[in-house]
């Protein structure tokens, strides 16, 4: 996956940080101070679309050939998260107990075309 820069138009990862103070949640979330959510944006032209994580091979060549000859299939390709990791939170529940948990698949680490 690639990170978005000013000139990137193809599928990339955009960084997006949610500061818990900005949304008024700092009174119940002890750690961390914010959430590096991130998200995916950009175009997925037919030659980029592939099964994420599959290296160039006979199979990807066949898939690209099918997509090149099938406009509908190419239009369905979306820029989506291909790698995520959990968000660790330490917070107060409504009974003021302290809870630590890891919410799976919350932070987008990489993006790719479907």
């Amino acid at each position: 996956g690639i990170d978005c820069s000013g000139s990137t138009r193809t599928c990339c990862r955009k960084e997006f940080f949610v500061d818990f103070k900005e949304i008024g949640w700092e009174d119940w979330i002890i750690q961390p101070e914010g959430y590096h959510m991130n998200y995916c944006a950009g175009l997925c032209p037919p030659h980029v679309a592939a099964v994420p994580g599959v290296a160039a091979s006979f199979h990807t060549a066949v898939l690209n050939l099918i997509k090149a000859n099938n406009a509908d299939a190419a239009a369905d390709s979306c820029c989506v998260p291909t790698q995520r990791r959990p968000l660790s939170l330490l917070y107060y529940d409504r009974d003021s107990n302290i809870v630590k948990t890891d919410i799976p698949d919350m932070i987008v680490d990489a993006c790719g075309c479907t």
Partner: protein
Amino acid sequence: SPHGAPRCPMALTPPAQRRALLATAQHSILTGLHLPERPRAPRPPPRAALLSALRRVQPQLNRGVAPPRPPNTAGQNYEVLSFAEAGPSTPRSSRLLFRFSQELRENSEVLQAQLHVFWPPPGPGSSQPVAVRLLHGDAASNGTALSEAMLEVRGEGWNALDVSDALRSVLSRGTERLTVELNASRPPLPTYGWDDRRPFVAVRARIGTPPSRRRR
């Protein structure tokens, strides 16, 4: 999207996009925590009690080592620290009240629960057994104990007692309250205030497999 437009989502103006992303972030966190809404007006324990409890359950914090990065597993585990409220007490007997969350009762399976109690220095060279009764809810004085155990207190320091079965029993009866009664053979019992020696229960739980669902 309108007819004929690409089917991929996300085509908002920057301010609307930011609002949508913030709303998505809040919704994702609450959904991930299985909370219907954000907790309101928590009453945090004193910092000293919190640090003392965290050091007790995560000894690596004492060495300045960061906890290990969480593995990207399918399941979701919880660790809960519940601090005691002081209940009625006499020189020989003292009650500690714990209140757990509704989410723990409804959505989770308790893997382990340990009661941590700090004991002040006993008389020179002596130890003393402390009878611990675990009671359901805000139990009446003559309430039936869920279980009883003996805690052999030797010297000053923290003592731990496994209360997993008692907590599971409390939660399966539809309440989130557990009462712990300490009875000392040699009074007086220590008094617990809002300091770094406040008793607590440390719970490890797993989301999504409550006992009733597992049986079914």
